[in-house]
């Protein structure tokens, strides 16, 4: 009996050692900045090129990394078919907020765009669409006057040319630095959508990570078809604000793509690799006779 206990004790110690050892072997490696990205979901380090080639999806756990507007449009439209519109609309600083110009400049450098919304026309497997994408690297894809103007112009362009509209949202909401002007862009973009709607034209809204605040509460929620991309945070109020208000912890999976699907707010969750195909199928089903392949 004693032998048995002794033996068990030994084995336990060995086990502890191996476990500790294992922990030690997971010591973080010194990775040169920008070469590897750490997955938010599984923690794996992924080589930049691998990530890029795999459309910013984690090869280990399928987590979707954020994607900038240019890569997004490239992934969706037929090669060489994209023609951008309203590129030169830029922000001003109507309230004279300190450091706002600098933040815009940083956003321009990071996104390589003049503003947080890239838009134009392109073809999805031959079907011409008006397409736009918010860029979360540009001040969290926030909507100020310039973004609101570009979104509205794109919608009006689609209405005028009787084109279906596809918008990818990725935004923290209205841009604080432009105060009430930003708030009013919610009404402005929704108004433009009404006219598109009245022409019986199709609008597919794709909510990507993250879509919240004033963008979620305006044009992003008004799609005839609502798609949530996998791994997206979607909601109106920020988690921190809700926590402060209700003074309790938020449930697991709150405001995720699955949450929105379960609560009836989106039609489907689509994996990034299937996005182009899904959009094509939907567009195709909405085409009128004789409008095939433009």
């Amino acid at each position, binding site marked *: 009996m004693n032998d048995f206990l002794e033996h068990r004790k030994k084995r336990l110690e060995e086990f502890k050692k191996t476990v500790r050892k294992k922990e030690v072997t997971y010591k973080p490696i010194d990775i040169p900045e920008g070469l590897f990205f750490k997955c938010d979901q599984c923690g794996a380090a992924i080589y930049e090129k691998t990530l890029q080639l795999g459309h910013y999806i984690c090869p280990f756990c399928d987590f979707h990394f954020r994607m900038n507007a240019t890569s997004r449009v490239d992934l969706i439209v037929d090669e060489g078919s994209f023609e951008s519109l309203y590129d030169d609309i830029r922000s001003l600083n109507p309230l004279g907020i300190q450091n706002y110009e600098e933040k815009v400049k940083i956003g321009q450098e990071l996104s390589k765009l003049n503003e947080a919304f890239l838009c134009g026309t392109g073809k999805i497997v031959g079907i011409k669409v008006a397409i736009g994408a918010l860029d979360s690297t540009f001040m969290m894809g926030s909507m100020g006057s310039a973004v609101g103007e570009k979104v509205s112009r794109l919608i009006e362009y689609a209405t005028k040319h009787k084109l279906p509209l596809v918008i990818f949202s990725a935004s923290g909401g209205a841009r604080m630095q432009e105060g*009430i002007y930003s708030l009013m862009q919610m009404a402005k973009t929704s108004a433009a959508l009404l006219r598109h709607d009245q022409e019986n034209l199709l609008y597919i809204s794709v909510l990507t990570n993250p879509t919240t605040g004033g963008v979620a509460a305006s044009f992003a929620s008004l799609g005839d078809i609502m798609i949530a991309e996998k791994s997206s945070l979607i909601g109106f109020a920020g988690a921190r604000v809700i926590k402060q208000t209700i003074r309790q912890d938020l449930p697991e999976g709150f*405001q995720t793509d699955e949450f929105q699907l379960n609560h009836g707010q989106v039609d489907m969750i689509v994996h990034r690799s299937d996005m182009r195909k899904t959009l094509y199928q939907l567009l195709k089903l909405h085409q009128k006779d004789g409008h095939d392949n433009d």
Partner: protein
Amino acid sequence: MTMINKSAWGIVKLARHPKRITSRTLLDHLVTDFIELKGDRLFKDDQSIIGGIAKFNAMPVTVIAQEKGKDTTDKIKHNFGMPHPEGYRKAIRLMRQAEKFNRPIITIIDTPGAYPGIEAEERGQARAIAQNLFDMMSLTVPIIVIVLSEGGSGGALAIGVGDRILMFENAIYSILSPEGFASILYKDSSKAEEAATIMKLTAKDLQSFKIIDDIILEKDGLHEDPSFGIHNLKKQLTKHLNQLLKQNKKTLLENRYQKFRNIGVYQEEGVKHE
């Protein structure tokens, strides 16, 4: 009668003054024969927004108002004027009804914002607000929006799309509360006073931005003696309603569209648009 110069923070404090009248009192003085209509027909009745039919200058109108509540019990009943999606859905239901019976719509904004809670998110707060912005743009009857005290963010705008926007002298209307603004921009919510100044949230600011159409002067303030302000509102409301009732539906909708379409300050090809 001119406006007394007050600091932005001074106005924030007046807008939130505990003795300032709430929508219900304003309605009692503004309209007659008020019949409250309840419920969104989908989930429940949200008392942070009250609505119904009434008479203004002997004309039937639909009124929609965010109500904060008077005493503690009443405030809890009205959720401090912070609507859930069902509140917005009730509001738009009543507005569509107004369109059917060709009644002008008067909305009264008084909210710190849409309620940030778990259930509100589950029931689609974002969609509810967006739907109202979209639908209000299409209604073929005149819509006059009154900002009574606090107009907080998308939660206010969701009943704020109209042909005229009138704002009380000591009201504020902004993208979020000065506290929220300070905590985001300065990472310090105690800098609300400073934030209030730079946010440009007073009636005067918004008139200079052409976001509101008229300021309703209050004289001693709605917390001291509301009669002056209410009298002024009646005058303004009558004037604007008469103007709008003369417009045909097409003009009304086109003007409403342009009113919001033109808001924004940006530059294009080096040319400033505002």
